[in-house]
């Protein structure tokens, strides 16, 4: 206590400096800084863990093959390391997921932000949170054991093949990213200032017109951020695609009604702890992991940019 009143004492040497160095406070400050710095340490470790085995890998297989060949068959008798098939698998899952989640998420967000009465909102928000909290292994099993057979039963004329389906995996991933898209878009629309809405009302616009022609365009960068974040989440989703898209042929396959391996599913199916350290297959996990990390990092940076731009304009 004495430190802060030092300056009020009479005497010539008036100073705002504390007369007690308070080493305890400094130690606490140091600890807090350390806890915050842990996250930077984690990122550094991730980058290091992912990239460290890469030189070893690309001395055994050609980096050109990795990015151009169209067959992915590590561990096979004649292994090939062309990453495209599993990238295509991921892309099919992400596109299907976004086709499902963007309309549902955006419409839910418009409803929550512009139309829902406060009590309704208070019920729906937690329900969406529960959907977001459902473990992906549960959603995956549901999609594999029920949704996939059910959809085949509904549409028997589609080219279904085998037990797995990349498209159904995408639909299931879409379900779990709905809450993310809805809540980020809802936040964006709610921070559009009231005055914009009222200006439009004053000109005689209906509530629907205000929502679609004023609020949505005004919040568009936040809404795009929501889509990008949803896409990034879909790229990284593992358990659902592992269960529902399964493993497919090692070559390219664009049929969403058959199974295909994705980047995440490859990592999860290969790295079950039994694998020999330093083998090409072991290192290939890290190569695919690096690619996955870089893709999601780029998407997250874009999303953060969009959100920042939005905040700049209205807050």
């Amino acid at each position, binding site marked *: 206590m004495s430190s*802060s009143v030092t300056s009020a004492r009479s005497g010539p040497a008036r100073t705002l400096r504390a007369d007690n160095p308070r080493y305890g406070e400094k130690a*606490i400050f140091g600890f*807090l*800084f*350390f*806890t*915050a710095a842990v*996250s*930077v340490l*984690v*990122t550094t470790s*991730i980058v290091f863990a992912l990239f460290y085995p890469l030189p070893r890998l690309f001395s055994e297989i050609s980096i050109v093959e990795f990015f151009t060949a169209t067959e992915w068959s590590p561990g096979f008798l004649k292994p090939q390391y062309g990453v495209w098939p599993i990238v295509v698998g991921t892309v099919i899952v992400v596109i299907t997921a976004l086709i499902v989640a963007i309309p549902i*998420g955006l*419409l*839910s967000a418009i*409803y929550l932000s512009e*139309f829902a009465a406060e009590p309704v909102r208070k019920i*729906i928000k*937690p*329900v969406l*949170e*529960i*959907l977001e*909290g*459902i*473990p*992906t*292994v*549960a*959603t995956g*099993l*549901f999609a*594999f*054991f029920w949704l996939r057979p059910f959809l085949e039963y509904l549409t028997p004329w589609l080219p279904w093949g085998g037990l797995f389906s990349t498209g159904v995996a995408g639909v299931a991933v879409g379900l779990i990213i*709905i*809450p993310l898209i809805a809540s980020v878009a809802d936040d964006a629309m709610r921070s559009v200032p009231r005055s914009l809405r009222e200006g439009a009302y004053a000109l*005689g616009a*209906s*509530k*629907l*017109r205000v929502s679609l022609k004023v609020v949505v365009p005004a919040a568009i960068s936040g809404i795009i951020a929501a889509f990008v*974040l949803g896409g*990034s989440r879909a*790229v*990284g*989703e593992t*358990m659902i695609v592992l*269960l529902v898209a399964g493993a497919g042929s090692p070559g390219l396959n664009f049929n969403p009604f058959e199974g295909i391996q994705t980047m*995440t599913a490859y*990592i*999860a199916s290969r790295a079950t*702890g039994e694998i020999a350290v330093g083998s090409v297959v072991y290192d290939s*996990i*890290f190569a695919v992991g690096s690619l*996955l990390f870089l893709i*999601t*990092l780029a998407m*997250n*940076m874009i999303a*953060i940019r969009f959100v920042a731009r939005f905040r700049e304009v209205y807050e």
Partner: protein
Amino acid sequence: MSDSFSQLPGRAKFAAAGAGLAVQNQFKSQGSRGNGPSIVFSALMLLALTIAITAIIAILAWAFFEGRTRLDMDLIFNGPSTVNKATAGYSVAILGTLQIVGGVIALIVPLGAGAALYLEQFADKSRWWNRLIELNIQNLAGVPSIVFGILGLAFFVRAPFNLGLVAAAGSATIALLVLPTVILASREAIKAVPPSILEGSLALGATRWQAVWRQVLPAAAPGMLTGVILAVSRAIGEAAPLLLVGALTFVTFAPNFFEGGYSALPVLIYNYAGRPQEEFQILAAAGVLLMLAVLIVFISFAVWLRARYERSW
């Protein structure tokens, strides 16, 4: 209005009502551009929400109907077995998950609260390293869980930590995975405490830390606790990174935190589901129901806590 037409017979009643409505519409402001959303758009919005809510109900219903014959005490108290298919359970995996969650809580509470307090109360935002930490946490929150699995495999299971395929490695991996979420939630909770509380305390002669510890932290605690509960619920359900750090091993004995194999509830569910016998698929569905029941209780508690302590200053 309908009263005046109610004596008219069948079709005439409709015609009269229609005419009445049409005239009324003429005088109402803007007609269809009135206050409500158009019927089509309302229907679309409700459909969207219905699909989202139906998804939850469908997953629960599927798990219940599929696993209903195995909703017994064996499910919780019996260990996994490939021989006794009809009475195998999840006890070992539940213990594994409890150990993982215990470790996660021990790590994320100090680290999460510390980082959030630092960023909200102590950090000078004009310094580049503080902005770097902030940006880094935002990015870390978006890193796929399987990448954390790779981190766990490369750092915790093998050198430098060299823990091996044990529950401690799984726990540390999951802790790092949920840490950014805890930090972001805690920051929001701290941000919601008005600066006047802190300033009042400082004005009365408290040091910075005293003011934060005795005034800001208690006020932000419920919000931070909500973040921790949501993180724990995620830790319970997360399977993908655990596949990489050894939880897929089929163990039949209770795990030790630092040695020997371990299993976790979602991973054992995945393991059971992959077996061809129908008994195991039923068991997997029953496990899903068990896990969902626990999670819904957790999430509801977090939501209730947030609503209960949500204060407007």
